[in-house]
């Protein structure tokens, strides 16, 4: 398991205010973790903060689960 995955899970748990143990490698933010669909851009901002990167808004719309977030972030690292 990559370090990126662990950090994505930690940030998702903090942003969506859920317990870290609820966030799995394949958790979907809306369906599994109760995010509002409009929150994806806030998750992206939290990932940017954690990884010190800039992510574009359009691509951010495609970040719907832990897995796609990890792929998206690793492209920017």
């Amino acid at each position, binding site marked *: 398991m990559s370090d990126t995955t662990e950090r994505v899970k930690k940030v998702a748990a903090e942003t969506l205010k859920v317990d870290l143990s609820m966030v799995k490698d394949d958790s979907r933010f809306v369906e599994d973790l109760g995010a509002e669909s409009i929150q994806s851009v*806030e998750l992206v*901002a*939290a990932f940017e903060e954690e990884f010190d990167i800039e992510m574009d808004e359009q691509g951010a*719309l495609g970040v719907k689960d832990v897995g796609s977030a990890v792929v998206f972030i690793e492209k920017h690292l």
Partner: protein
Amino acid sequence: MGVINRFIEQAKTKAGSVVLPEGTDERIVQAARQIKDDGIADPILLGDEQEVAATAKQAGVPLKGIRVVDPKASDKLGVYTDIYAKTREMKPSIAARMVKRALFFGGMMVSQGDADTMVAGVAHATATVIQAGALTVGYAPGIETASSFFLMVIPDFQGQKDKPFIYADCAVNIAPDPAELADIALASHASGEKLLGEPARTAMLSFSTKASASHDDIDKVTAALAIIKERAGGLNIDGEFQADAAIISKVAAKKVKEPSEVAGQANVLIFPDLDAGNIAYKLTQYMANAQAIGPFLQGFARPISDLSRGASAQDVVATTAICIAMT
């Protein structure tokens, strides 16, 4: 006077302001110039000042008298960040990243009364504009769903010239559930009250008129109506109606056996899903030679609107006038 010109004249009387977050798009800069020169509103362009100036130069448009604000350098950034962090319960450092984004900065300007409306979308997806609106401006009281409407102007409707109708939702919600359909109807009714120039009479459309048929799809519409009655019982929102019973009084007289202020004289038409709404507006546009103006976003606490990526500067001006007219 054409419908758009009527809204332009209406907007001029309001002395409102519009924030245009896509200040590095030539169409937006051209529109801002016209909005300013025609006195439609006070335009505020967002973007890096040098980049906006370069865009204006490229477009051959002087920026004299037009405010340009760089979200990343604005003295409002701190205030907006604090408010956003508090409202959304997040770390200020993350909130600052949100608010530095032009769409969110524009939304914060509207939510904090520093602009009356926001018009964006030539360089952003509709979903992104809705996100920014929902997270900054927020929804209107009692509404939890962003939706959209078209203002349809029918050249000759049963002998009436240039008859306006509101059609919704034709662009955003694909398969609304009863609560979402109720939100769409309530928001559309409010939009109709502001734009139609006459009281809104809102019909919930179906393939059935007052239980003339039975199906789950009809139950969805009647469930939405029940939610509407509970939330806002006094409004002229009724159904379920077939389209003819909604807009033609002779048909309503035959099909609707109970008193209704809406049947036969509806001017706001709520379609049960996006299939119906989108098909209906396009058929009306081409078969009745109607003017289809929109889509406009609705359901927010203050008017904001989305533009299509192909919008012209004239479309931006018209959209701004209608948003200002809705303030």
